[in-house]
C-alpha cells in the first residue's frame, strides 16, 4: 500500500457499495473520493462494486411486477376492516404537513424571516412580563385570543420547519397535548398542556421538558 494504510483502506472499502449507490453523506463521499483518487487498487475494486450495482439493478428490473390480484386482495381486506373515525390530531397534523409541503422555498424563506421577527418580539414580551412591565392592554397573539380553548394551562409553540407531520403528531400524542389555536404570524400554535389551570412553576417545568424535543423550535408560556 502506497498511499492509504490498510486500516483506512478497509474502512473506505466497506463504504464503496454506498458510494456507488449515491447514499453516503457528504463527508464520507469526500473521504471515499479522495481515497479512490490516491489508490489505484481501491479504484479497481470500486469498478467491481459498480458492476455488482449494475447487475443487481438489472436482475431486479427483470423480476416484473405483481399481478392486479395483489391490489384486489388488499382492497378486499381493507373493505372488510371496521370503519374508522378520523382522529382529530391526525387531521390537524395532515393539514399542517400539507401546508408546509405546498410552500415554495421562497415562501418558506420569508416565513422563516417572519418567524425570527416573531421570536424577537415574543422574547421582548416575555421579558416584559417577567420584569413586571405589563403593557396597559396586556398581550395576546393576533390570531389566538388568550381564552381560546377554555380553562387550562397553555403554551405557544413553533415547530421546527423540517419536522414532518407524523413527528409533530407523535410529539403531541406522547405529551398528551392539544393544539387549540394558530398558526399565528410566525407559525406559533397555542397548545393546551393541561385541562386545568396549573401553578406557573408547573407550567415552567412542562415548558422546560417540551423544549428539549427535536420538533420544537420555540416554546413559551401562554396566559
Amino acid at each position, binding site marked *: 500500500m502506497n498511499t492509504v494504510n490498510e486500516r483506512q483502506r478497509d474502512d473506505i472499502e466497506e463504504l464503496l457499495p454506498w458510494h456507488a449507490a449515491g*447514499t453516503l453523506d457528504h463527508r464520507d463521499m469526500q473521504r471515499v473520493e479522495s481515497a479512490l483518487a490516491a489508490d489505484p487498487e481501491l479504484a479497481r475494486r470500486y469498478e467491481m*462494486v459498480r458492476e455488482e450495482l449494475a447487475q443487481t439493478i438489472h436482475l431486479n428490473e427483470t423480476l416484473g*411486477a405483481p399481478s392486479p390480484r*395483489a391490489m384486489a386482495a*388488499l*382492497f378486499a381486506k*381493507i373493505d372488510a376492516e371496521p370503519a374508522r373515525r378520523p*382522529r382529530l390530531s391526525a387531521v390537524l397534523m395532515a393539514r399542517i404537513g400539507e401546508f408546509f*409541503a405546498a410552500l415554495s422555498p421562497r415562501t418558506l424563506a420569508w416565513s422563516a424571516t417572519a418567524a425570527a421577527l416573531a421570536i424577537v418580539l415574543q422574547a421582548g414580551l416575555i421579558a416584559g412580563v417577567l420584569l413586571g412591565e405589563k403593557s396597559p392592554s396586556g398581550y395576546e397573539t393576533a390570531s389566538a385570543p388568550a381564552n381560546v380553548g377554555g380553562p387550562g394551562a397553555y403554551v405557544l409553540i413553533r415547530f421546527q420547519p423540517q419536522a414532518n407531520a407524523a413527528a409533530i*403528531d407523535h410529539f403531541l400524542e406522547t405529551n398528551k397535548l392539544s393544539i387549540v389555536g394558530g398558526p399565528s404570524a410566525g407559525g406559533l400554535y397555542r397548545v393546551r398542556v393541561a385541562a386545568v389551570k396549573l401553578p406557573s412553576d408547573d407550567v415552567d417545568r412542562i415548558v422546560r421538558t417540551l423544549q428539549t424535543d427535536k420538533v420544537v423550535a420555540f416554546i413559551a408560556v401562554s396566559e
Partner: protein
Amino acid sequence: MQTTSDEVLIGRIANGDRLAMQVLFARHHVAVYRFVLRMVRNDATAEDVISDVFLDVWRQAGSFAGRSAVSTWLLSIARFKALSALRRRPEAELDEEMAEAIEDHADDPEVALAKKDKGAALRQCLTKLSTEHREIVDLVYYHEKSVEEVAAIVGIPEATVKTRMFYARKKLSELLKERGIDRGWP
C-alpha cells in the same frame, strides 16, 4: 409538478382515506414486491405478502412516527412478513431450494455462456447468495438504502451492516470464481 409526499399520504391513510392508500400502493408496490420476491422466490407468495404489508400500513398508519422514510418502514414490514412466510414454507420446498443452491457448477451450456458474459454470470451468482446476503445486496444496490436505513430495516447495528455487505460481496466473488471468473479479489 408537485407530488404529495409519502408522509402526507400516511397522514391521510390514518384517517381512513382509501384513495391515499391507492396512491401509496401504486408508488411502492413494485419495489416492495421485488424485495419480497427475492426473499421468498415464489410469485404467489410474494403477492400475498405485499397485500399483507399494505394492510398493515392501513392499520398502523396512525402510529407511524416519521423517524424513517416511508419506503424504509414498508421494507422493514415486508422483510418481517417475508421471513414469516419462509418459516411457514413446507420442508420439501426448502430442501429443493437448498439443493438448487448447492448444485454442481460444471460447465453446462448455461455456465459456459456465463463465462463469456460476465454480467450474466454476476446475475446468476446474485441469485445463489443466502437470504441474508441477498437482502442486504438488494437493499443497498437496488433500493438505495443508506447504512442507517439498512440497519433499521434488518434490525442490526450499522457496523454489522457494513461487514455483512462486505461478506456478501466476498461470497459473490467466490461464486464467480467457481464459475471460472476470477476477479482478483478478495
